[in-house]
């Protein structure tokens, strides 16, 4: 994503790349990944069709594998994920149709940098959660700007508040789900509070929470 790298080169991610900063977990993950591939290759051979072309491809793949002694490191994975995070934030900044997209992107960059400042080997923001968040805002362009923070697992948590007793919070999970919480006044007993929590895929989150009147006060 050349355009993304260029766009962020002077203002994004001011920290030392994990590639230049080895950490204890890297060799463990490398071993796990290596083991996974070494185990999966023979299984692939057994289950593949036996055409000449495929046989040749497999031979090439297998014969080349041992020569590449260090195919992945955790640093490589993190850098790759960080590229994706940058790309998604760039898309939020430039392509979603909300008036506060610049501010939203800046908030995400701040959170990312906060996480990295604490632990440079951390994810910063998990790619899956950011993709989920991006998809949500692509479909819902009339929402007020939420307060966003990160969970301990580096997932995005967005909150909308109104007055003393209205809260709608969404935890964007990396798998496309969203866990939500609603606090609102009890319609029949305004001094009491109605509270509910649930899980829905992000694409049906709106229709899931609309019956609770949430959309009336989180949208413009």
């Amino acid at each position, binding site marked *: 994503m050349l355009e993304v790298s260029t766009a962020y080169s002077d203002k994004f991610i001011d920290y030392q790349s994990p590639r230049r900063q080895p950490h204890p977990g890297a060799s463990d993950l490398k071993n796990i990944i290596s083991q996974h591939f070494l185990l999966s290759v023979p299984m692939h051979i057994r289950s593949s069709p036996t055409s000449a072309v495929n046989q040749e491809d497999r031979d090439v793949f297998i014969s080349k594998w041992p020569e590449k002694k260090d195919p992945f490191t955790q640093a490589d994975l993190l850098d790759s994920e960080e590229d994706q995070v940058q790309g998604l934030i760039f898309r939020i900044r430039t392509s979603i149709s909300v008036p506060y997209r610049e501010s939203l992107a800046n908030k995400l960059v701040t959170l990312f940098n906060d996480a990295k400042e*604490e632990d440079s080997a951390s994810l910063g923001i998990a790619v899956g959660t950011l993709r989920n968040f991006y998809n949500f805002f692509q479909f819902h362009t009339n929402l007020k700007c939420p307060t966003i*923070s990160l969970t301990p697992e580096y997932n995005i*948590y967005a909150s909308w508040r109104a007055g003393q007793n209205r809260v709608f*919070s969404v935890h964007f999970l990396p798998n496309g789900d969203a866990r939500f*919480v609603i*606090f609102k006044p009890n319609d029949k007993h305004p001094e009491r509070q109605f509270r509910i929590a649930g899980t829905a895929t992000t694409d049906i989150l709106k229709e899931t929470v609309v019956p609770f009147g949430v959309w009336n006060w989180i949208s413009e």
Partner: protein
Amino acid sequence: MKGDKIPDQHHIARFCRPMQVPDGQIQATAFMLRKDEECLSVNWLEFLNRSSRESEIAELRKIYSAKFNVGARAKLAVLNVGEVREKVLTESPDRRNLEVLHDPQYKEVYDPSHSGIYNLKQDDELIAELILETVRETYPARK
């Protein structure tokens, strides 16, 4: 002593990471567990036996800075034990009975007031929001 229940009238402080304090406002994410955590880490303020809240907070700042990298925007949230327990017990859908237990740590960093809020689960967003509503005071986590 490890496992002692902290009295309801006492207070605890929770370290809130910068990524959980956007625009200076502590969010519910500060009260969520990591995958590998059994309890929410807090510090028992009265156990420090200091003469003032400021002095308690100063002591905690020292401990935290010895334990990990404290970001500039990190904060400390002070909560009353009884209020947190009562709030969650009466307002959570499953009437969750939280326990706040002393859990002193003497490993790499001497942290004798370290304690934990127990009976939380990984997907407790609603309870995290309830705990957030009981925050009484906030302080910068570093001077």
